[in-house]
């Protein structure tokens, strides 16, 4: 019994770094959804490209400068996606915008694959590498860096939103876009700012995660997918919710394999999460209702 509990505890501890990464990505996903009502399916790729940039730049300009540049690049990438793709497709439909982000994902993955190849590359570690024991398993300083970064990042995030004019403007625009413009807030500008912020957070998560699991043009972005599940669980518009959701998702991935022989089948955590995500979406889902009637011609 104790060993099962201990196993679970270790599972949770091991899951925390991943949950932290999900939290960082998830915060960006939520900020974008609040600003643009779009799920940015390119988010994983926006997180990965800066990690590759860090890899290429750090030997030349040193790690600290390269990190700053990479984070900035992540922000710029976010703004570019919003302005060039998402905004253009606004008049078509929400779905078209989401497909647009999917297209961006495909493009970025293809570019990264071409430029850096499809072999696994070692990520740049931002902390001196050291291992230590947790129960039967090993954890590394990179893991701690991820956890620390996500806690710090969340605090900065909340602080920004609560205490600055910039944050107030973004909150107002997200709560009621039209009313915000009547207050003098340019909603297009706050949208761009939101995507920039999301891009920076994504880059941070990507850089740190790459330091752990290495760089791969397709696998690394795909690791972000559970962050969407986390956002969905948290309600898509709540920063606090997504952090909680990230914990749930991370823990699920960590614990499911220790739940007996069924849990050890490959892909079981994914099945569990998919079922959870679908149930959550369905419960919040829409039955044919009067409120659905919007003009087909507007």
């Amino acid at each position, binding site marked *: 019994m104790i060993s099962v509990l201990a196993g679970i505890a270790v599972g949770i501890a091991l899951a925390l770094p991943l949950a932290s990464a999900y939290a960082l990505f998830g915060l960006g996903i939520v900020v974008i959804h609040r600003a643009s009502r779009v799920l940015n399916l390119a988010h994983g790729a926006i997180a990965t490209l800066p990690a590759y940039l860090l890899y290429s730049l750090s030997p030349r300009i040193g790690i600290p400068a390269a990190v700053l540049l990479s984070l900035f690049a992540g922000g710029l990438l976010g703004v570019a996606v919003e302005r060039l793709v998402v905004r253009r497709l606004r008049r078509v439909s929400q779905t078209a915008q989401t497909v647009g982000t999917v297209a961006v994902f495909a493009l970025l993955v293809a570019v990264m694959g071409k430029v850096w190849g499809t072999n696994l590359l070692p990520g740049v570690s931002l902390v001196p590498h050291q291992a230590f024991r947790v129960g039967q398993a090993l954890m590394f300083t990179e893991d701690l860096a991820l956890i620390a970064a996500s806690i710090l990042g969340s605090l900065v995030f909340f602080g920004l939103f609560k205490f600055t004019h910039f944050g*107030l403007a973004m909150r107002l625009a997200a*709560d009621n876009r039209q009313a915000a413009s009547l207050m*003098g807030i340019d909603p297009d500008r706050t949208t761009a700012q939101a995507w920039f912020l999301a891009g920076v957070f994504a880059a941070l998560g990507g850089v740190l995660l790459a330091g752990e699991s290495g760089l791969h043009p397709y696998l690394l972005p795909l690791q972000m997918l559970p962050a969407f599940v986390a956002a969905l669980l948290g309600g898509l518009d709540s920063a606090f919710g997504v952090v909680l959701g990230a914990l749930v998702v991370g823990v699920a991935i960590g614990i499911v394999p220790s739940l007996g022989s069924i849990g050890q089948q490959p892909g079981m955590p994914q099945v569990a999460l998919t079922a959870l995500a679908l149930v959550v979406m369905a419960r919040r889902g829409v039955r044919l209702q009067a409120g659905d009637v919007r003009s087909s011609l*507007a």
Partner: protein
Amino acid sequence: MSEPLLRVTDVDAHYGPIQALRALSLEVHQGERVALVGPNGAGKTSTLRVVSGMIRPTRGLVRFAGEEITGRPAHELVALGIAHVPEGRALFPAMTVEDNLRAGFWVRRSERSGYQRARDRVMDYFPILAEREGQAAGTLSGGEQQMLVVARGLMSEPKLLLIDELSLGLAPKIVAQIFEIIEQINRQGTAVLIVEQFVHMALQNTDRAYALAKGQVVMDDSSSRLLANPQLVAAYLGDVAVAHARDLSLTSA
């Protein structure tokens, strides 16, 4: 005759294929209280939206405080002195009363000391808001919400305050209360353009009024004269009602 504060000339407005305004013209002078009345769908809300920049007219001109503002987006016009309190109370429902007021002050956010003064002023007008400071705006009662959005509109110290359907869903007593406060605000120099479905309220509390129907101005007069004009009833309810009104006047004479 000085130039009016607001002049709308020959404006057309469309929502997709629907034409909401047809060659509409009106004026508001400094310090005036003007009402827009008319049945639902007549174009009253669309008129306010054109003035505040929420929608762009497809034809025509809008001038405010000597500047041409036709087609400029809403967020630029707030800085010029237009505050719009939209229909349906357009709150920031998830945010506190305090935050909603801060939102109203946004255009003046660089004036650090100004915020406290502006806030105190609106709290004088609407003392009940002080009690609800930390509450989420969405949880306030209808009347309180309406007071909040008017207060929010005042935070920017506008030259022209646009108010759309403030009586919607409110008890007549509260509506009367709010109208009184608007009178006070007006005496301090703010011009007011009010859209109101309840004709009597609107005409009793304004200096001039325009009656709209199907996107056009059909009557334009001082409020007291409009109040006595039987044609106004016809615009709402048809001729039988007018005849009925005349019958009554004969019997009560």
